[in-house]
Each structure stands twice: as C-alpha cells, then as structure tokens.
C-alpha cells in the first residue's frame, strides 16, 4: 500500500484536524487551568502542520536522500494479491472471536496452518507445524506461566 506523499499528508491533516476538534470539545476540569483539551489540540495542530509540509514535499531530507531499500512490492503476490496483507490481522481477529468457544489448541492450529500455507509452505511442513507449535506454546504459557488459556472443545490433559 504505497501511497503518494500528498495522500498521506492529507490523511495527517484530516487526522490532526479531527483530533484538535475532538480535543477542543473536552470539558475543562475544576482545579486545573490547562485541561485535558490542551494536548490533543496541540498535537492535532502539529499533525496538520506536518501533513501540509509532507503533502507539499518540503523537508524531505535534511541529510542524505535515502533510496528505499525495500524489496519489490507485491510482485510475488500469488492468488489474492494485496488482499494477502489482510490475512494476519484477520487471523488475529479470528483468534479473538473464536478462542473462547473452540479453545486454544484448535484455534492456534488453524491460525498456524492458514498462515503457513499462505506464506507458501508445503502441507507436509504446515500440518505438523500446526499441530506441534500450539502444543508447545500452550505448555509454556499455561503450565509454566499460569496464563488461563481457554480449553474450549479440546481440553488438554495437563
């Protein structure tokens, strides 16, 4: 998702403006002359200024102009193209929605499997990984650190 500087600058201006506006609506607090509105407004104004400068291309670099040492974007994208970028956050949301019902081990296995396959792993790597990794993680967090991971459908023997 490489956007031009104008676009990101504009986004910053809008964000800064929204922040300053929302901040200004905050009620003052008795006993404090400088209330909770001050900082959001200051930051909002700062963001607006930065956004304008960036959109106008000022102050790109005061030092060496750096070439982006980035790997080529998206050329290796297979099936879904740019949508692949959404898979990791989607997996995290999946975890939040499902873990209390399915339990930790199944949810984790699904996540690892989907991610590994999406990243190009062969099934003979992805499937064993999806089975073993959640077990280790569960052992470490549940047994060792006493973090309550939900049991759900597949309660663990330990």
């Amino acid at each position, binding site marked *: 998702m490489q956007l031009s500087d104008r676009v990101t600058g504009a986004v910053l201006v809008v964000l800064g403006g929204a922040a300053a506006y929302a901040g200004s609506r*905050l009620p003052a607090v008795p006993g404090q002359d400088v209330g909770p509105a001050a900082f959001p407004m200051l930051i909002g104004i700062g963001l607006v200024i930065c956004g304008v400068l960036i959109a106008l291309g000022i102050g790109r670099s005061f030092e060496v102009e750096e070439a982006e040492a980035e790997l080529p974007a998206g050329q290796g994208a297979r099936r879904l193209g740019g949508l692949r970028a959404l898979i990791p956050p989607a997996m995290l949301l999946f975890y939040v929605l499902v873990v209390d019902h399915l339990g930790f081990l199944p949810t984790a296995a699904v*996540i690892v499997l989907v991610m590994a396959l999406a990243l190009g792993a062969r099934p003979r790597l992805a499937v064993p990984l999806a089975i073993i990794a959640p077990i280790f993680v569960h052992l470490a*967090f549940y047994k060792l650190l006493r973090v309550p991971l939900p049991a759900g459908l597949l309660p663990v023997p330990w």
Partner: protein
Amino acid sequence: MTEMLEAFRMVAAPDVLVAILASAIYGLVVGSLPGLSATMATALLVPVTFYLSPIAAVATIITASAMAIFSGDIPGCLLRIPGTPASAAYTDEAYAMTRKGQAELALGAGLWFSAIGGIVGTLSLVLMAPLLAEMALSFSTFEYFWLAFLGLMCATLVARSSPIKAIASMLLGLLIACIGMENPAGTPRFTFGIPDLLGGVEIIPALVGAFAVSEVIRAMVTPEPPPLPRRKFGSILAGQWRLTKKYQVPMWRGNLIGIIIGVLPGAGADMAAWVSYAMSKKFSKEQEKFGTGHPEGLVEAGASNNASLASGWVPALLFGIPGDTITAIAIGVLYMKGLNPGPTLFTERADSMYALYIIFILANIIMIPLGIAMIRVASLVLRAPRSAVMSVILLLCAVGSFATGNNLFSVILVALFGCLGFVMERNGYPVAAMVLGIVMGSMVEQNFITSLIKSDGDVMPFIERPVSGVLAAMTFGALLWPAGVWVWRRFGGGRLPAAETPR
C-alpha cells in the same frame, strides 16, 4: 564485613542459584520471542515468586529483566522485530548489519556492551546510591517535562530519511498516548465508549503490532528474500575487544547517560536507548554510516539501556519509587517478601542489600555465556523457512499480548497496530518514532500540566529553574538542529563534508 559474607552465603544457597539460572534462561527466551517482551516476562513471574524465598524471588526478577532487555535485541537484529521498546531505537541499524552478513558482530556488540553497561550500572548503584538518589529527588516536574521532551526530540535526530515524517510519526504516537483516562484531568479521552480503552493503549500490544505483526504482513506481500549464505555463526565475542577499544568514548558516554536517565523515576531503559543512540549519531565522526549497519550506535545504546536498568533500582530500593514498569513490579515483589524498600533495607537488612548487589553482578556475568548460547540458538531461525517462522510469530503475538492483562482486547489492538505499522513503513514513516511517542506521551503531558498547576499557570519556572533551563536549551537545540542544518546547507555553501554518498 560480616554482612558481605552473609550476603555471599545467602546467594550461594541452592534455591537462589537455581532461581537465577532458571530465570536467566526464562528471561533470555521470553525477551527474544517476538510478541513477548521484558515487561511481560517480569509480570508473568510474579505468581511464581510467591512460592520462593525472599532472596530467590528478587533474584528471579533481577535476572529475568536484565536478560530480557538484552535478548530483546536478538529478534530485532535477525528479524527486524524488536523484543522490547528499548531495542526499537536501534533495530534498523542492527538489521542492516545482519543483511551485510555481520549479524554476529551486531549481536555480540549488543551482548558485550549490555553486560558492561549492566556491571557499570551496578557499580554506580553500589558506590553512589545515596548521591544518585539526591539527584533524583531534586528533579521536579519542570525538569521531567524537559527531559521527556528531549527524549521525544531524539526521534528527529535519528531519522534517516524525512525528519518531518519522523515528527509526524511521533505526534501520532503522542495522540495515541492521549487515549484513555490516565491523564492529569482524569477525563476519558477518545475512548469511543469502549471500557477497555479507559486505561489507554498499552505499550506492549502497540509494540508487538507495530513491529511484529507489520513484519508478518510484509512477509505476506513480498517474495521470500534470498536466503543468507548458510555459514556457521562465527565467534560472537571475537572483535568485541577491538570495538571496545575503538569506541571507548561512546561506550562510557552510553554508560553515563544510561545511569543518569535510569536513576530518574519515570525515565527508563527505553528513553536511555533512544537518547544514547541519538547522541551516538550526533557526536560520531562517521555520522553518514549510521543506518547502513554501523556498530557504534549499538555500542552506546546497548550499554545505556542495561546501565539504566541497574541504576533504576536506586530510587526503587531507597524510596520505593519505581523507575519504570519493571521496577514497579520488582518493588511489589520486595514488599511481598518483607524486604521493604527504604533505609531499613540498608541498615537492618544490609546483608539482603549486598545479596542483591551480588545478584546484579552475577546476572550480568552469566549473561555472556548464556547470551552466546541464546544467540546461536536464535540464529537457527535465520535458516528456518520464513513461512514457519512468521506463522509461529503471529501465534505468539496473539498469546503474548493476551497474557499480560488476560484481555482479548489487546489482541484486537495488536491487529490494528499491525495494519497501521505496515502502512506507515510502506510510506516512509518510521514506526519506532510512533512507539517512542506512545511511551513518552503521558510523561510529557503529566509533567507539563502538573508543573503549571504548581506554578499557578506561570510558565517562567520552566526556564528559570537552573536544571530546567539547561534541559530546555538542549531540547530547543535538538529541535532546531535539523532546521539549522538545512538552512546552512541551502545558504552556507559547499564547504561541508560531502555527505552525499552515491547509492
């Protein structure tokens, strides 16, 4: 003297030694796993300490946190995913070294100079605790404000490309820090009616999302990079002595800055690392090499953040005032075990005090062999298929961020910050600056507003107080430096050393 001997005896107790070893390994492992962090490692130890003897309990906290702060450098160097906010200051630098094939030099520098920083910091604790405490106590909210502001300005000093974008990232971080009701007014801000946001955005989910998840997303949309040549990792420590001799000044400067910043409650390893990295760059004779894989910054920042850890215990032990979240947890454990912070710890429980010092030094010494082992193990990850590594990292992100507060909302935050971090990096906005803004935001606002309340709205004390004045001057210097350089370049003519290296 008898107390010293008693202290040695206490530390030599088998349960303490086992605790130190176990928590060292624990700290190393947890700190180096992306998705987890030093603070999380320490917080998760608290239930365990309940069952340990007092010295063993404190030993686990000290050792685990010292190890985790160092091992946070490992994933930063190898995967560009910092394990702790402190490592975020020089992650890009370390990763650049890895790409140049100098991973073991970078990690070795991190290890060696962390150990040195930790030992020097401990010595400062032992020898100068009362003096440092006096200094810490003389810092009031005015001084803290400028210090926090100065810390923020480091984001501009280390920006490799556009400083404006770095400032914008930092402002974004500050804005995120405004969320919640943890502000001087106690007014909920930007919570959108979500109760989980009342406490603000916690730094761990933000860090994990912005660095780790965004890296995973990036792995999704870029082809697998050519595997680094399969060669065995060379000796980790070779070359460290040479670095020590070459960069003596940065190392001592890092130690000093780390000690001073660490001693001030509220300013911790994160800030120490940032300030030191920025200073290293500014005072270096080879400034243009920074960012391309240059160890000098790693030397100074690595020493600084471990030194600050040790000196952060000064206000904690003397007054029960936490320097950062980790020491806050440690203070809680001290109380729980009957080792109440305060002068009684130095007078009536002096043997326990000396035992703590010994544990500090011991932890930093065993950091070296254990750290080497950890680095070798971690380097295997460079050889593992990316699909496996990234998948497990994502899982760890989910579980790790859930684990600290047992709150699934943190996982949602991680996902959001992952998207944000990815978009930012794609467009040249340094994510580390945003993280710095989140970490420092409340410190800046808190001290600004409380100072104004105390001075009844008068802004003069911000500049009149001596230490404040000095810090203010430094801050404005840092703020206007980039602008000054720009003006100089534009209008000053071409007598400047050629900084334009062809690419």
